[in-house]
């Protein structure tokens, strides 16, 4: 079966346009990366509600906050490295502390950015954003989910961070799948171990599930698209029912989704865990596929982690 490839930023762009058509209160700001973030698709249709901010991420966050305080739902768009990193204090005070209705679209998340290299590969945003009170953090696994997440975030009170990717990734969710912020999605049942994945790693987790099946290992697969607020119930249930957890994320394992899951597991039902992710290092330039191998983010790496975690049960 041929799998359709599409970048999550494209799903975001489509979601924005749909929102713009349905709602007058949607405004979009962009820090000079209008085409790359797909904010351009909104700009083309609704130029009067689009604001070009130049290479000024900090100013963009503040301006977005002011628009939000004027009753708008403001989408602030730039690369994740700059949205979460460069403008972190503005996000902390002007967005999170004040609970302003700003939605951050941080595209080009993770090493799948590829050739542009470490300055542009955001591997830290999930951690940077989830530690902020009042912040919601979403990382869609495919373009369809990204579109749904974009639309859902507009109706969700307070600041939201959307982690989006540059490169095409397999579309694995279905139109009829229900996307609900804060509610994880069970993709595969399993009893020996649970793989909790987010973003592009959800697809890798599904591949791992199939590979493990051949070795008679039954792996549950959960798409944890919302890192915050985290779906505690699903995580605790997985820990109780499968006795071991592997997390997989295209992000540093320091403070990211895996850490968030571990915080739930260790306080409720401790079981062995393994983390698949970027191991406390910066990214580097290269072809995304090769980088995934180099950084240990492939389905084979998940399979290895599963075997290791089961041996620790």
């Amino acid at each position, binding site marked *: 079966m041929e799998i359709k490839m599409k970048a999550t930023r494209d799903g975001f762009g489509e979601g924005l346009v749909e929102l713009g058509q349905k709602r007058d209160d949607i*405004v979009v700001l962009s820090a000079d990366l209008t085409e790359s973030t797909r904010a351009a698709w909104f700009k083309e249709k609704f130029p*009067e*509600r689009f*604001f070009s*901010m*130049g290479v*000024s991420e*900090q*100013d*963009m*966050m*503040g*301006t*977005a*906050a*002011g*628009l*939000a*305080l*004027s*009753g*708008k739902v*403001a989408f602030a768009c730039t690369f994740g490295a700059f949205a979460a990193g460069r403008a972190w*204090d*503005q996000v*902390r*005070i*002007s967005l999170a*502390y*004040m609970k302003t209705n700003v939605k951050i679209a941080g595209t080009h998340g993770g090493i799948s950015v590829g050739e542009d290299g470490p300055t542009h590969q955001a591997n830290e945003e999930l951690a940077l954003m989830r530690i902020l009170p009042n912040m919601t953090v979403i990382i869609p696994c495919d373009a369809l989910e990204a579109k749904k997440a974009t639309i859902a975030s507009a109706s969700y009170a307070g600041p939201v961070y959307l982690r989006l990717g540059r490169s095409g990734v397999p579309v694995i969710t279905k139109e009829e799948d229900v996307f609900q912020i804060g509610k994880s999605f069970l993709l595969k049942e399993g009893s020996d171990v649970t793989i909790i994945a987010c973003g592009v790693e959800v697809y890798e987790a599904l591949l791992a599930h199939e590979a493990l099946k051949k070795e008679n290992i039954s792996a549950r697969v959960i798409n944890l698209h919302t890192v915050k607020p985290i779906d505690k119930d699903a995580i605790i249930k997985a820990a109780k029912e499968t006795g071991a957890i592997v997390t997989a994320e295209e992000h540093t394992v320091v403070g990211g989704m895996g850490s968030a899951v571990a915080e739930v597991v260790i306080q409720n039902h401790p079981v062995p865990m393994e983390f698949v992710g970027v191991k406390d290092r910066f990214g580097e330039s290269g072809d995304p596929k090769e980088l995934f191998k180099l950084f240990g983010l492939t389905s084979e790496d998940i399979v290895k982690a599963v075997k290791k975690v089961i041996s620790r049960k």
Partner: protein
Amino acid sequence: MCCPYNKRINMAKQPDIRELKNIAKEIRIEIVKMLSCAGSGHTGGSLSMVELLVGLYFYKFRCDPDEPFCNTRDIFILSKGHGCPALYAVLARMNFFNKDELCTLRKIGTRLQGHPQRGLPGIEISSGSLGQGLSIANGFALGARLNKDPKRIYCLMGDGELDEGQVWEAALTGAHYKLDNVCGIIDNNKFQIDGRVEDVKGLEPLKAKWQAFGWEVFEVDGHNVKEVVDAYDKAEKIKGKPSMILAHTVKGKGVSFFENKNKYHGVAPNKEELEKAVKELEMER
């Protein structure tokens, strides 16, 4: 039903300069009392901005204390959040909240946080991390434009605050979008925590900088109420670009032993100092 565009609360068509001066004096007394009661806080920068607030709130500003978030209000943003005692005193005097609440400043459970927090009536934004206010003001201004709302947006900054790069990003934005509904105010008291602004990191020529960034600049004596209100009036008439009131002020203004004494940037008066300060302020004509 609030209708600040039609009624000006506590305001006459012409500013009553003598009355405004008197209010400024009383606000200063409230500030030193409040700070002494709290035992900590920013004395110097609160006292330097008093006339800038009084000239605005008791003359120009359209708001309804009974309905602080009514749609047709003007917006005031205190970007130099550490000056909040002055703003709290003004808001209390305008009955946004009860004056008794002033003595809860900086204490557990208070709405009067050490730096302003959205939630207290009359406070539009949480501030304290410097340099963020002008961007938010621009956002309000763009929102007002989209909403076809004639509100004006005021944003008060400190001079030390202008070290923050975000301020200059916002300066570009305000000029680019021709935000003539924005009026910035600089409390140019010439000091920041580490010392004289010109020693810490020079800002001059400040007027020329803002002009070069495309802003209409009004330079005033920030303690001369007449000059201050005139500047607010003039700024309202500027079209096609934002305005900046560059107000020369004295840090710690009104109390001889606070004036230009940078020690009192972040130190509150003790009991003895309070008594002397109030006495001095009361004697002032």
